[in-house]
């Protein structure tokens, strides 16, 4: 498995509500709520931290699951979120766009 980097899509709107991340798609205004694991991916998606490190530090520390399985599940989830244009994923670090930054609130 190659290293995967995640970045928040700056075109979405997002806000945490009672521990649940609300995301409004910039593509078609669909509203999503992220589960706990997806929220962790969203919050950690800074474009520079590789997914395996996010899984090791943020997911395995929270869930009692083997690291390899957690990484597989996290990658599948990241790809699903990318399919909805909530996250951007790449095998290279993703620089923050100049026009829009992002905030984890």
């Amino acid at each position, binding site marked *: 498995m190659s290293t995967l980097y995640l970045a928040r899509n700056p075109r979405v709107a997002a*806000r945490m*509500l009672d521990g649940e991340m609300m995301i409004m798609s910039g593509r078609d205004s669909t*509203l999503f709520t992220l589960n706990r694991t997806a929220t962790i991916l969203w919050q950690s998606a800074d474009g520079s931290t590789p997914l395996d490190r996010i899984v090791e530090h943020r997911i395995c520390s929270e869930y009692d699951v083997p690291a390899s399985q957690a990484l597989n599940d996290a990658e599948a989830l990241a790809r699903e979120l990318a399919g909805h244009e909530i996250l951007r994923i790449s095998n290279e670090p993703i620089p923050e766009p100049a*026009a*829009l930054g992002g*905030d984890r*609130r």
Partner: protein
Amino acid sequence: MSGLMEEMAAKAQRLNIPLNVQLDLTYRCNERCVHCYLDHRDHGEMTTPEIKRLLDEMADAGVFILTLSGGEIFLRKDFFEIVEHARRLMFCVKLKTNAVLIGKREAARLRELAIEAIQVSIYSHRPEVHDGITLVPGSLKRSLDAIRFLKSQGLSVTIANVVMRQNISDYAGVQQLAEELGVEFTLDPTITPMMDGDRSTLSLGVGSDALSGLFRESSLVGNVDEFCAIAAEPGQDELEATPCSAGHTACYVSPYGDVFPCVQFPLPTGNVRRERFVDIWRHSSQMNEVRSIRVKDLPTCSSCAHASNCTRCPGLAFMEGNMRGPSSQDCEKSFARTGIPSANMLAKNRTAANLVQIRPLPALVSGPAAGAMA
């Protein structure tokens, strides 16, 4: 509202989170609409740093949908700096504008900033009527050009058509125009008193007959029979319900930092120049008073035949003198829909023109009998 959004709004209300805020960036305007309720002079607008700090506080408080309005928002030289900051904080940003100052470059910038929706005021498809309301020659053309620029960028645009005596016969033309432009259309027959309490603008409102006609136009209301049906007797859930989202999941901030429950509810609750936004939201006694009101607490309206489906605006009621009282404009709307006078109208003995020639029985306005009729 989508199911998920309703769920989020219910959760926000339970947790006392202001999900939805309208922030007016300025009351200055480049149009002089005859029905406008604003004082367009600048009495000390918030500065750029003040607005950015407020946006930070709003994000921390949980605000998700941020509607920027005015006045005309594009008159602020720092408009794009403010929007950039708002989008960096990941607000869902909506705009209300007359669009006169939006050219190709501005439209492209709005696209880059991923603006969720833009509402543009259009009063008529005829320049002489639209420009006669805005009092700015050429304003219709400029607004329509702007809508085309916005559409060419793939942005979501809604034409808002406020109807009044001057343009009541033009809504179908505006509706057709919206269709041709490929944008949404919304119609609003509500004229608001001036901010200083002057109610002279209300004389521009359409009368009962015109309102009744609008409410029987299926292209505006959908299923006319359903829309004009007499309300069922309110159940316990409806009586325990909150009158609207003002003060519950929504509020309004003026260009001077004053916080109100809603743009149409001029009850001052605090100022963000002196207090943190979240402290005003959570602890203002005025905000908490608004929050405490349930439909069952409304002395006249809770026993009205229209109680379970009235559009009663607490802000308009407040402007009439009592936030727990009726809003006459909404009484007129309920009457125009159903032909049944509201409890308020009966109390005032002014049933206006009886549109449906059935003499209302007293029992119809007392609840159970109304339910039986429905």
